[in-house]
């Protein structure tokens, strides 16, 4: 049994320590907002926060999480940066199919937490790991800037 801190709650799961956090969240805890996209940390759809830092949950074994706080798309709205990012995402109407957007929002809110007023290079560096097949990148950039202004 392994106990994880997810969105401020303790969750105990019966899983091997090498099981990636992505599948623990989705299949064992039923938290399906975090998405599977590639399985090899190439697309960013599975991004969550560990103590506020963006990580790819598809390659993060739960045995390596320890007692660090996991934040997912279901919980990020209760953080100041996450709530501003979510609002900006709707104001700018970023989303198309939306499948990658959980990961985009998690990467963007981690960026805003560490860099409250990111420039274009900061945005490129923080967001280049997140693929959007619908091509919403221009609006993602606009929304991040809008969220930063709101902070």
């Amino acid at each position, binding site marked *: 049994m392994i106990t994880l801190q997810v969105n401020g709650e303790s969750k105990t799961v019966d*899983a*091997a320590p090498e*099981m*990636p956090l992505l*599948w623990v969240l*989705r*299949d*064992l805890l*039923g*938290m*399906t*907002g*975090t*998405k*599977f*996209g*590639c*399985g*090899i940390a*190439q*697309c960013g*759809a599975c991004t969550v926060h560990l103590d506020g830092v963006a990580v790819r949950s598809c390659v993060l074994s739960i045995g390596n999480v320890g007692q660090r706080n996991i934040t*997912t*798309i*279901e919980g990020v*709205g209760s953080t100041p940066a996450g709530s501003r990012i*979510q609002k900006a*995402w*709707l104001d700018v*109407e970023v*989303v*198309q*199919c*939306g*499948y*990658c*957007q*959980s990961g985009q*929002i998690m990467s963007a809110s981690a960026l805003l937490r560490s860099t409250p007023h990111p420039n274009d290079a900061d*945005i*490129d*560096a923080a*967001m*280049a*790991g*997140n*693929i*959007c*097949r*619908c*091509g*919403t*990148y*221009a*609006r*993602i*950039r606009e929304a991040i800037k809008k969220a930063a202004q709101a902070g």
Partner: protein
Amino acid sequence: MANRAQKRASLHAGRGLTRRAFIEASVSVGGALWVGFRVPLADAAAGEKGPFAPNAFIRIDATGKITLIMPQVEMGQGIYTAIAMILAEELDAAFEQVVLEAAPPNDKLYGNPTFGIQVTGNSNSIRAFWMPLRKAAAGARAMLVEAAAQTWKVDAASIRIENSMAIHETSGRRLGFAGLIGRAAGLTPPQNPALKDPKDFKLVGKPLKRLDTPDKVNGKAVYGIDVLPPGVKFATLAICPVFGGKVGHVDDGRARNLRGVRQVVVLDDFVAVVGDDMWSAKQGLAALNITWNEGSNATVSTDDVWRQIRTASLQEGAVAKIIGDAAKGLSEGELHEAVYELPFLAHAPMEPLNCTVHVTPTGCEVWVGIQVLSRAQAVAAKVTGLPLEKVTVHNHLIGGGFGRRLEADFVEKAVLIAKQVDGPVKVIWTREEDIQHDVYRPVYLDRLSASLSKGRIVGWKHRITGSSIIARWLPPAFQKGIDIDAIDSAADIPYDIPNLRVEYVRDEPPAVPTGFWRGVGPNNNVFAIENFMDELAKKSNQDPVDFRRNLLGKAPRLKAALDLAAEKAGWGSPLPARTGRGVAVQTAFGSFIATVVQATVDEHGAVRVQRIVSAVDTGIVVNPDTVVAQLQGGLVFGLTAALYGHISIAKGRVQQSNFHDYRMLRIDEMPQIEVYLIPSGEAPGGIGETGTTAAPAALGNALFAATGIRLRRLPVDREVLSGKKPA
């Protein structure tokens, strides 16, 4: 808009509608190859108990709640919002109070008028449903007005409806829909209800916020991959890596002993492992020792594919279009010839293929996001041997379709697995299986000849060679050797050319399955034609914009788009060294688009796309923000393909496997994109695929302007652009 969060697109299929079918097939005639369907205005709902249901798209219950049934699937293109806007517009319903529900599988009630079956594709949702939905809603509105007139014993003409409320101005009486449906249900729906004058539209034309997005930013949206029926198990599969190969022997001794692995399912051409979770299933699959019978395709390579299609392209094709005498025209001016080639492409939607199925002795339940809902139901019925009505399909939001989900192969495989599993099972393809077992955008070869005289084209011949997806996917539409998709945007080339011949040669590639890919036929044709047009402009020493404009006399809407795009892009103004602008125009999917790409190329051949300007006349626009978003996204999709898209085959297998070797454009490579909408009162055009076809064509011309090197193959080859390799 108020209370967006409360307005949540219902994610599950509607409760079984029992009303009789009301779409009548009309016989397709002559050259009109698409099957034509007419949607009558009403069905036999009158007199039934339950909500007021004047047609298949609208239900109003006793509380006045308006439920709009979505015949098309939402995959990011904003169609739920657009359909809701059209229905609410003609119904005069309070938009912020409507509830959306996905249609169940039912070709007769919800078939796409263009295809006759439930299809979301070909950028035609608005084109196909614009009038049927308006008439359906206007008919319902007329019934509600008549009910109010009878209730108040006044003339119907003295009643108006506003925000779901009937109002009799002179007496000041008002009545909500809840108070009208009882009487309305007993009325006969009008055959030809009056439609609004577009100048009176209150919703259509406004950039309204989308109804499906609030739940997509907080993790609540439920895509097919997210369903968790009680007791669900998880499965993942390995298909024979060689196309057409079969399973030989499976040694599952090690897999069966792994924690969480429940079952190994061996089928004809694939093997699946069922586990307590996806991780266990993946571990189990990796632990299998599978011997494949690779079959006859085990030696096929991309070289074989190209050798075959190049040979095929030398033969005369089926004639798709003739104007004047092409042979005579070609003999008269200065002849110029070129061959353009496009590679196989995978779709790679962000949501990996998945389908959840529960088979019992008496029924089958399917949860899936798919562009062809009724085909999902049909394939599940076929595989289980159950009658159609015993197969329930829950349609879900789609995390990217792009044509991949116009196929039901992944539903078939999931049902085959589920037949052997006790309880529901969610089958998820890994990204590797997705890339290696797609139905690929076919390779195309476009052979073009033109002759120039006095700066104008006097003869034109275009022979398109490639796979016919239509022949497999919609066989009745493949007639006289012509694939109407493969010739789209070529047979109806917008330029004024007196002598023209367009031919199609069907050439099915060895081994590799082919399918529709965002942009479909116009992709190869617009790329080839628009690059060739630039070659002709160069040959006749004309500016590419001027050369085109002089030939667009019969296409005023396209000409206006060209002028606007050129103006906004600063066409003709100076640029730094190794930086160029390229233009492309297209009439595709009923829209008129001109695009200017500005790109720079460094000495190593690395390309940086700096700016894209698109001007579009797509007729009446339902939601302008969605149209802009579709163009922005479509351009990125096309750029990705032009810069990186390439699926290659060796030993009968796809060589790429994931996003590290099947690259996508990322945010740090994004150009500035500007989209300009041209106001129009014409019928709506399609928009979902137009950016995708525009980008590669205009990019090719920009790269030529930057380097003087003409790329006649995609993706962009940096070694060619750097001069290390001949073009």
